[in-house]
């Protein structure tokens, strides 16, 4: 679904050039849930923005659904760390924003999306809140609205940049369980950036570890724990602990990233 070949990104910063990403090869299969984990500043957001078409890579190619990415696509949605809701719009109008802005959808088709919006809001437990304004909702509820907005056009790919990191631990667990449930229903491909090892383990089919400066692919960890998973009450505590400690080690390790040869082995193209 998503394929990155030799992707590099160099920024012209004020203090010279910054190599944010270097030689990234990655293939995300359709329907797969991949978490992207790494230290602050290692280029996770940059990688997502490349896939979203908000940036074009300085080297290499990014493909989504087999086509080279040249700009934002309607079947790829982006969810931010903060809810990024428009304060003057009702919850419903916020969810419908992507449809409203889409100049290629006819007005008649747009009406059909209203029902979809109601469905989605119900799915995340926000039925009855359609007419509310964002400031009347809690942070967790706002992020749920944001989630509905990114689901409204049934995206093939969802890109999520630390979407739950501004929330308290309890809401966060709740939302990540909801996300898993939605994911199982919709079979969307998800790339999910996180700082949290726990989150990476609970959510992902595979966790991609980036190493900092320049951002490179350090390793990819398969997470083959049966779903649905959760942190507290599950029967896979040992598995979770094993994979968590592996990720810890990878994130803490200061040795240079794995050689490209190794990438090819772990990562059949």
């Amino acid at each position, binding site marked *: 679904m998503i394929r990155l070949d030799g992707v590099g990104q160099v920024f012209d910063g004020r203090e010279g050039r910054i190599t944010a990403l270097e030689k990234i090869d990655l293939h995300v299969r359709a329907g797969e849930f991949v978490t992207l984990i790494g230290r602050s500043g290692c280029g996770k957001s940059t990688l997502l923005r490349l896939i979203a078409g908000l940036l074009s890579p300085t080297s290499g190619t990014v493909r989504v659904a087999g086509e080279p990415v040249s700009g934002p696509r309607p079947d790829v949605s*982006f969810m*931010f760390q903060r809810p990024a809701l428009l*304060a003057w719009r009702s919850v419903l109008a916020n969810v419908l924003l992507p449809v409203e*802005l889409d100049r290629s959808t006819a007005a008649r088709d747009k009406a059909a999306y209203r029902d979809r919006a109601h469905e989605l809001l119900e799915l995340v437990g926000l039925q009855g809140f359609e007419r509310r304004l964002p400031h009347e909702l809690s942070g967790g509820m706002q992020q749920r609205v944001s989630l509905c907005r990114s689901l409204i056009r049934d995206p093939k790919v969802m890109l999520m940049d630390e979407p739950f990191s501004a929330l308290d631990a309890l809401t966060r667990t709740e939302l990540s369980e909801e996300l898993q449930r939605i994911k199982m229903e919709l079979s969307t491909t998800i790339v999910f950036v996180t700082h949290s090892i726990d989150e990476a383990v609970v959510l992902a089919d595979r966790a991609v570890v980036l190493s900092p400066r320049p951002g490179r692919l350090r390793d990819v960890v398969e997470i083959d724990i049966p779903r649905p998973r959760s942190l507290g009450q599950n029967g896979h505590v040992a598995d979770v602990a094993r994979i968590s400690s592996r990720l810890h080690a990878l994130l803490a390790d200061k040795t240079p990233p794995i050689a490209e040869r190794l990438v090819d082995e772990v990562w059949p193209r």
Partner: protein
Amino acid sequence: MTKRSWWTESRTAAVLLPVAGLIAAIGLWWLATIVFAVPKFLVPSPADVVARAAEDPMMLLESTWVSLAETVGGFLLAVVIGVPIALLIVRSAILERLVYPLLLMVNAIPKIAVAPLLAVWMGFGPSPKVVMVVLMCFFPIVISTAQGMKSTPVELVELLRSLNASRTQEFFKLRIWHAMPQIFTGLKVAISLAVIGSVIGEFIAATKGLGYLIYTSGASADTALAFAAILLLSIMSIVLFYGLVLLEHRLLPWAQEKR
């Protein structure tokens, strides 16, 4: 924790206190005119002012209407011109460099210095007053609108980019809305300036209006009439200001929370 009392919390007190302040001020004014025995043609007492106003209420009302029409007309014109200019400035960096210094220069001109010229160009009718009002309130409107649109959070701009929004959509679905609270701040500054503008206009060349009334009554030492006209001007200014505040509450319920 500060101690909360009826005086700072209740709604009745919120109305009572300013009214009490006003009554006290009028009382002091009255007292001063009696105690110091000020001649009526220098400082009239509140009673003198009311009596003078009662002599000719229609004329005062008509003058108020004239000034109000000039003020509101010029203000609305300034909004209609100012907001699109702000839009263009924010939209194009080239235009900003081109127009911004000009705007600053126009704003730097003491408006009162232009008033006689306006009279020469446009005569004694309402147009030079309206133009003066526009000159007075144009700048705060442009600046607040432009600043508001520029301060749109990057994440919201990025959100619209990720949704493939056009530049026009970015302005009309996002930036202008985000700027609304700041636009209203500018409008509230501008409306007070608008009142001043109409008075300046009427001082220089006019045949009616509250400003004209103040000017002519000064010449004939009819101080009580001047006071009445000044009071009406202040009331007009306050009513216009609170009209905007009310409008803001109505139109922008989502913006109240942030304050």
